[in-house]
């Protein structure tokens, strides 16, 4: 019930692949993840990459802490509970889900940004590998 549970999901850095590679027997899987180098994974390739990756998380964190200071702990807790409930209404990971409830809660159904125009996941030409993605989601991978 601490506020620290919100901060644990904040990703401040690009995940490093070398530490726990996802191939069989813990060896780096060149077929799936391609050639890797530690420098490529540790350093961001563009100054905006990290800030864009964490933009929504940072914004939520800021809003929730303001709300907590104004109205008390119950306000962000209730909102977080609703978010978690809405986030579970999804299809299997490799299928596109509309996220309607989540969008309504966030208010992103009333605004248009680059995430709606560029790189639309519903229009990508490739689909993720179904078995791998479901295994990843269930934590079996």
């Amino acid at each position, binding site marked *: 019930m601490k506020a620290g549970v919100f901060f644990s999901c904040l990703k401040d850095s*690009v*995940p490093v*692949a070398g530490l726990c590679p*996802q191939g069989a027997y813990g060896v780096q899987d060149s077929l*799936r*993840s*391609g050639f*890797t180098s530690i420098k*490529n*994974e540790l350093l*961001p*390739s*563009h*100054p*905006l*990459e990290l*800030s*864009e990756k964490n*933009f929504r998380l940072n914004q939520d964190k800021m809003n929730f802490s303001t709300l907590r200071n104004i109205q008390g702990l119950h306000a962000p807790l209730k909102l977080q509970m609703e978010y978690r409930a809405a986030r579970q209404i999804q299809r299997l*990971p490799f299928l596109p889900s509309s996220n309607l409830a989540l969008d309504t809660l966030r208010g992103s159904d*009333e*605004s*248009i*940004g*680059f*995430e*709606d*125009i*560029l*790189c*639309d*996941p519903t229009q*990508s*030409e*490739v689909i*993720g*590998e179904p078995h*791998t*993605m479901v*295994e*990843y*989601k269930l934590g079996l*991978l």
Partner: protein
Amino acid sequence: MLHTLNPCQEQNGGFCFENSRRNAVLESSLSEGTNKAPSARKTGTTIAGMVCKDGVVLGADTRATDDMVVADKNCMKIHYIAPKIYCCGAGVAADAEMATQIMASNVELHMLNTGRPPLVAMVTRQLKQMLFRYQGHMGSSVIVGGVDVTGAHLYSVYPHGSYDKLPFLTMGSGAAAAVSVFEDRFKPNMELEEAKKLVRDAIAAGIFCDLGSGSNVDLCVITDVGVQFLRGYDKPTAKGQREGQYRYKPGTTAVLTKTETPLSLDVVDECVQLMDTE
């Protein structure tokens, strides 16, 4: 476009930075050689705006440059945002165009949600928040002007996200030339015709004194009554008509004497040469 790192993670929309490392390597290798990497087309502009008695007058030139070449002689730099809010964009042409289109869509959604006409301050706030989010990588400087329920307002927003609220504003590469005209002749609460002439003069100063601006002057007059978009309001760089000619009319010089000498020529030699036309 697979994420090389984790193919199991879902893809989000928005900007994808996968190729930025490859692009950095390509650019550094290109800069050493003879070829140059393509650069974004900038508008190299003069845009200006001022608040007058009844509303706002916005003006812009119409030249788009690509480094040292004129890419477009008659481009439109005044963009629609809301029925009574227009904005002029300078800087990278694509960034300005995209930013203003996104703003227009957001304003329309906001209007449908709240049921009220938008405020110029709302447009400015959304624009500056978006530009600050991208830390100046979105290189578009914008002048937003319009009339709303609180009156006529004029804001300028810089690429990094700062903004100014002033009675008259200029931006772009020809801003210095245009602002000099404003500083000389601006008075608060000017009449509409006088204001139009002043903005036209300011843009013309930018057209003649700045290499990045040229062609015609576009004006946009926004008042409580409505909007008047005057595309091609003035063409100061149009070629003039020739008033007269320097050629002399035949018969100007009087003929005093005339001498005719026939030259009798004899045929000396005749030879035929065939051309190789196969």
